[in-house]
């Protein structure tokens, strides 16, 4: 399998006034297509920073990040945005749905930005995904009318609607109870198996980690190691 993401000797330093805070220090990582990978580590370890860099919402201070064959350090803001739109799906800790749009419209949104599909095709794609995440009859609801778990399902659908090669999820279960969180991870896992979409998600929940097929451990901005999770069934 070829690497969808390769991170090479990446450092990220944030400037807070005059002091420099290193968030990542010389991290290298390869993610292959079809992986269901978890990043684990305590708060402030650099999980989110790594996801931001892989997700092309941020660029490294040094080193290189290549996503889908493109070196993000060499891309313009516009090109990075296009790359995100076409190749990456996002799932956020706080769901981040657009409050004033319906479930259907939230999921449809990336397709509208892509502007490649006609109305009918968009509707088919959105409805199909909503069925898949178990919200087929909630299309017209507003996010505020849904439970946390349901909202995160909508977010999953939104992340997948543009058929990205890579989906990033930053603590997707942190705002959910453990049962619901487990369900979301199962859903993501299903999608990963069905379509071969690569998933990279961060968590500090041990139970969630057990669902991943590999775990990257990170602490103090440094990669501690990568371990494959042996799974039953």
């Amino acid at each position, binding site marked *: 399998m070829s690497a969808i993401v390769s991170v090479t000797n990446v450092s990220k330093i944030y400037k807070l006034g005059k002091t420099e805070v290193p968030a990542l220090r010389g991290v290298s990582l390869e993610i292959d297509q079809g992986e269901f990978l978890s990043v684990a580590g305590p708060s402030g370890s650099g999980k989110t920073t790594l996801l931001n860099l892989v997700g092309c*919402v941020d660029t490294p201070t040094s080193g290189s990040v290549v996503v889908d064959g493109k070196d993000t350090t060499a891309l313009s803001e516009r090109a990075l945005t296009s790359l995100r739109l076409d190749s990456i799906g996002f799932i956020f800790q706080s769901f981040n749905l657009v409050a004033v749009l319906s479930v259907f419209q939230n999921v449809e949104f990336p397709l509208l930005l892509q502007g490649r599909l006609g109305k009918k095709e968009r509707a088919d794609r959105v409805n199909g995904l909503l069925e898949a995440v178990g919200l087929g009859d909630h299309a017209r609801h507003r996010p505020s009318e849904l439970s946390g778990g349901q909202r995160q399902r909508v977010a999953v659908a939104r992340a997948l609607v543009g058929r990205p090669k890579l989906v990033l999820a930053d603590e997707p279960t942190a705002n959910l109870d453990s049962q619901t969180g487990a369900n979301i991870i199962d859903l993501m896992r299903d999608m990963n198996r069905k379509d071969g979409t690569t998933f990279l998600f961060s968590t500090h929940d041990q139970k969630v980690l057990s669902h991943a097929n590999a775990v990257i451990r990170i602490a103090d901005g440094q990669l501690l190691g990568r371990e494959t999770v042996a799974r039953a069934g």
Partner: protein
Amino acid sequence: MASPVGKIRILLGIAGRNLFASRARTAIIGAILLLGTALVVAGSSLVESVDRGMRSSIQGSLGGHLQVYSAASKDELALYGGMGREPLLEPIVDFARVKEALSRVPNVKRVVPMGIDQALVAGGNQLDIGLEKLRADVRFLEGGDRSAELLRRYEAHKSHLRRMISLLWDELQASRALADDQLIRDRKQANEDLARASSPAFWDGFEKDRLGSLEFLENRVAPQAMEGTTTFVRYVGTDIDAFMEAFDRAYVVEGERVPKGQRGILLGKWYAEEYLKLKSARRLDKLKDARDYQRRTIAADAELQRWVKENQSQLNEIQMQLDPLQAEEAVARLQKGLGSSEKELGKLLSELLRTSDADFDHKYRLYYEQLAPLLQLYSIRVGDTITIKAASRSGFINSVNVKVYGFVHFRGLEKSRLAGVMSLLDLMTWRDLYGYLSREQSEEMTALRAAAGTRQVSRENAEAELFGGGGGVEAVSQKAARIDEAAVLADIGGRKKSDDLFDRVYTQEERDRGVALNAAILLRDPSRLRQTQAELEKAAPGLGLKVVDWQKASGLVGQSVSLFRMVLYTAVLIIFAVALVIINNAMVMATLQRVREIGTMRAIGAQRRFVTAMLLVETAAVSLLFGAGGAGLGAFAVWLIRALGGIPAGNDQLYFFFSGPALLPTLGTTSVAISMALVLVVSLISGFYPALIAMKVSPVEAMASDD
């Protein structure tokens, strides 16, 4: 991008939903914009309508499109009067030359000479009229007519005259108490004449020398009654034919136009109504107007009640006019009309004029149909010759007699003082009053001076000869020892009084060659006013002229619309400035609240321009929505005002501004366009900063956790 429609749809969808989601904010912004645009649309429609009305009033009655006057003038031209007086203008010495030069500019259709001034008018008085009637009777008597009817009329007229003289005598005695000794000494001769005329002995001897007695009354007594009927008249000295053709609003309402090229005056009808009409008739007209057009009632309006009261207390002006025969007739007609058996005229008149809301229309008709035919309603009638006295350029008083050919009105401005106070005087008479010497007159003066220097004359006779007016040039030149300019001018003016001048027809060339103060210019294509003004200005310096547009020429009147406009624009400016600040503030707050949402959109793949557009669309949507609503509201207000009959012109001034009895505003398409443009500009400016904030939101913001 392949699907702009879908994107626009989602932009509008998000904007609409956001606006709906924060209803309170939208309502506040909307209300301000609604009010602002409604004010712009309704206000500017009104101002434009007033502007149009005034433009039409000024251009059609006196101003034309452009005006020229001497650049050496101390004051600026003010067609409707300056600050309390007529502006001081240097004369245009040779109008013909100016006309010729200006007419060469292709867009100039007409050049009308003008000279505006005010003067005293002494109209015919009741005593004159009484004397006229008596003289007619005497002529028949002397001719041998001895019919009973004539004798009865003769006696009636005689006793009427005698009563008027005794009234005049009483008046004089009353005023003596107030006058100082000097005045009494000055008036000694007049006093003695009046005393003689009111003595029984004079009237006893009347039959012995009817013609001699009449002459005494006409020459010595009648002039003393003159002062009571003096009024101020404002006139424009002009080529009346050219004026009537150029100003299509002017029309002769009574009488006829001054015959082409002749001397004469057309009195302003409004002036006649206000100053020459019988006071009681005038008040009845005003009452009718107030009741019919202003929907006021006598019962509820203190001013109308005062008019009714004044009418009842001033019956003398009516009674003075009626000789005993007419008085009898009046009593009979009023008894019938009022259903009264009262025999005393005074009481009947009082009853007639004691009008209430219930009987006003009946009594108004009765007054005009039954009483008015017995009266002379206006102190100056068509066909009368009036004396106008004006301070000439050299400072002394010039006086000319001029025949009244008719009354002139300005269409649509019948009730406007500004337009209607103006009378039209022929240019030749105006030049006599103005006192500027034409070339011929100058030559005449030089000849007179030369002649005067060689003659000797007795000093006692000089005064009588100089100011008597009838003597003519020979008399002056033979008798005046030391002649001064004023005296000669007075004499030239005096000669103009003779009747042959009234019949003389002046050619166009004679009328054009001479002095004028300003000239109205009418254009073939008024839309090219500015261009033509520039062309004329190029031609003007050689002529020593200043070119101004109609608005500037109208003086304070023209400036008032600019003032309205300025007030409106200031109000609009303030409203929109406030709107700008409030909208900007609200949108900044809203944007800051949505940083997470915007960051998410950016992370998902929305370009910067998408989120910028999202914010701008939102402000533009709210602005256009409420802007259109406000424009609609303004348009509705304009429509409503029209539907309700317009804004009534409450006073003379407004009558002129509105160019009629009410302002019927029309919705200006430009006002709507301007208001929408304003709203759009305000929304874009106020949305600019929030959009900038949105543009700077990093997609990293999406990752921030709640805690």
